[in-house]
């Protein structure tokens, strides 16, 4: 791996207005050097990789875009493009390679590449194409109607990177917010410590690292202070954590299960359920 000073700035989860997080898989050192210099001057976060990495490692890097020279992959190129395209739908994939035919470009674009640039090319053109791909992704990914996630008394607002209880701000740090969001989105599934670390911190967890436990503890303290009647995060010893709001008195109200409030979709789903029930009754 080249460029040991990757992510020189504060690493955060996908930020709509933050710097673009770009990685390039390419062994052309001259090209990479010029590209790195230019994108870093634009305050992008850049990471240079000299060999393809598995898609799950790309997920952990939380990239906006990936520039790849598919000639490094040989015959596995198509499989890789497809795996990245399917596995990381939010990632812009720009192929930048030499001597490609029309048939290869068409195949690559159909399999999941967002753009294809032939070398030799100017890094400025590559940067412009990355910007265009990221812009399209943002437009496609913009969901202004997305409501808060509600669990128990807790309201998680992605638009504000914050959580609330009864309108009271929990004053979560960015890391704490990312952690509670990740846990809540897991829909009651147990998440392993290693997975949590990789998703929130963006790197593999070092053996013995207690960061996840410390941040879960901090999060629990804030949740307990704001919502003392509820228990949200459950420990699975030796494994990890599970988010499931449970009232400390009596049964868990049915509306307590984590849900993303999306008014239109919810209404449509409810209508469909009513129609199904009616059809079953008449049958």
């Amino acid at each position: 791996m080249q460029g040991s000073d990757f992510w020189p700035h504060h690493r955060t989860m996908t930020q709509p207005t933050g710097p673009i997080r770009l990685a390039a898989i390419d062994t052309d050192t001259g090209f990479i050097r010029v590209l790195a210099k230019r994108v870093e001057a634009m305050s992008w976060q850049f990471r240079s990789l000299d060999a393809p990495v598995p898609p799950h490692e790309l997920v952990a890097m939380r990239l906006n875009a990936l520039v790849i020279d598919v000639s490094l992959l040989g015959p596995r190129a198509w499989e890789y493009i497809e795996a990245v395209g399917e596995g990381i739908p939010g990632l812009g994939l720009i192929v930048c390679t030499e001597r490609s035919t029309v048939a290869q470009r068409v195949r690559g674009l159909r399999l999941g590449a967002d753009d294809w640039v032939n070398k030799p090319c100017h890094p400025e053109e590559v940067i412009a194409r990355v910007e265009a791909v990221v812009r399209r992704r943002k437009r496609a990914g913009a969901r202004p109607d997305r409501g808060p996630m509600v669990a128990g008394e807790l309201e998680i607002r992605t638009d504000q990177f914050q959580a609330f209880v009864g309108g009271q701000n929990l004053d979560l740090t960015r890391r704490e917010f990312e952690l509670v969001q990740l846990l809540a989105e897991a829909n009651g599934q147990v998440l392993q410590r290693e997975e949590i670390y990789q998703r929130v911190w963006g790197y593999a967890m070092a053996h013995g690292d207690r960061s996840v436990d410390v941040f879960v503890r901090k999060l629990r303290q804030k949740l307990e202070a704001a919502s003392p009647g509820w228990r949200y995060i459950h420990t699975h010893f030796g494994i990890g954590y599970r988010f499931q709001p449970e009232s400390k008195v009596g049964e868990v109200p049915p509306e307590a299960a984590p849900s993303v409030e999306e008014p239109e979709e919810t209404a449509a789903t409810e209508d469909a359920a009513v129609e199904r029930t009616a059809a079953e009754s008449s049958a």
Partner: protein
Amino acid sequence: MRIFRRAPDRRLLDLLHESAGNARIATDTLRELLADYPERRHLAREILKQEQDGDRIAHDIIHRLHEDGVAPPVPRTEVHALAHALDDIVDHAEQTADSLGLYGVEAPMAQAQQLAEVLAKSGAVVESALGALRDHSELSPHLVQIHQLENEGDRLSREAIASLFAKGIDPMVVIRWKDIFESLEQAIDSCETVAHILEGISLQNGRAY
């Protein structure tokens, strides 16, 4: 086992024991700090005070050693070496605590907690050994214990550093923790240095411990 051929200067032995007691307190404070990090990160300030106390005691030992009419209980070079080694234990413990704050460490590593446990045990045995030196009692059980703890610390430290070089770990984590593991190991090594000096004193007095 009696190891002195003439009446030792009690004050020097008391000061050496006081220095060892200070090392025991500092290493135990570091253990507590790491066990409950970051909640008890404020303990770093106490360790800094203990480090300053250690410097003061070392200064007192050196001055006492060079006072007229004072007959050192063991060769002057050995007293010097003991004073420095005891001071080094506290210095490395303080350096560890300081690094946690300096590097902005958010959470502890299990291996650092284990190393701090070993260090705290070593610190306690070092105090007992200096107590034995002052009281002219058997040194060997304490020295054996210190060597065993150093071996355990060495093993833990090597494994901890090796684990940092697994694939995909944040380079900042590697930089921070490699330094911290090394300073913990140096503190444990300083305990062993004390044991080596005491072993030499024992041998110079004609008795293998």
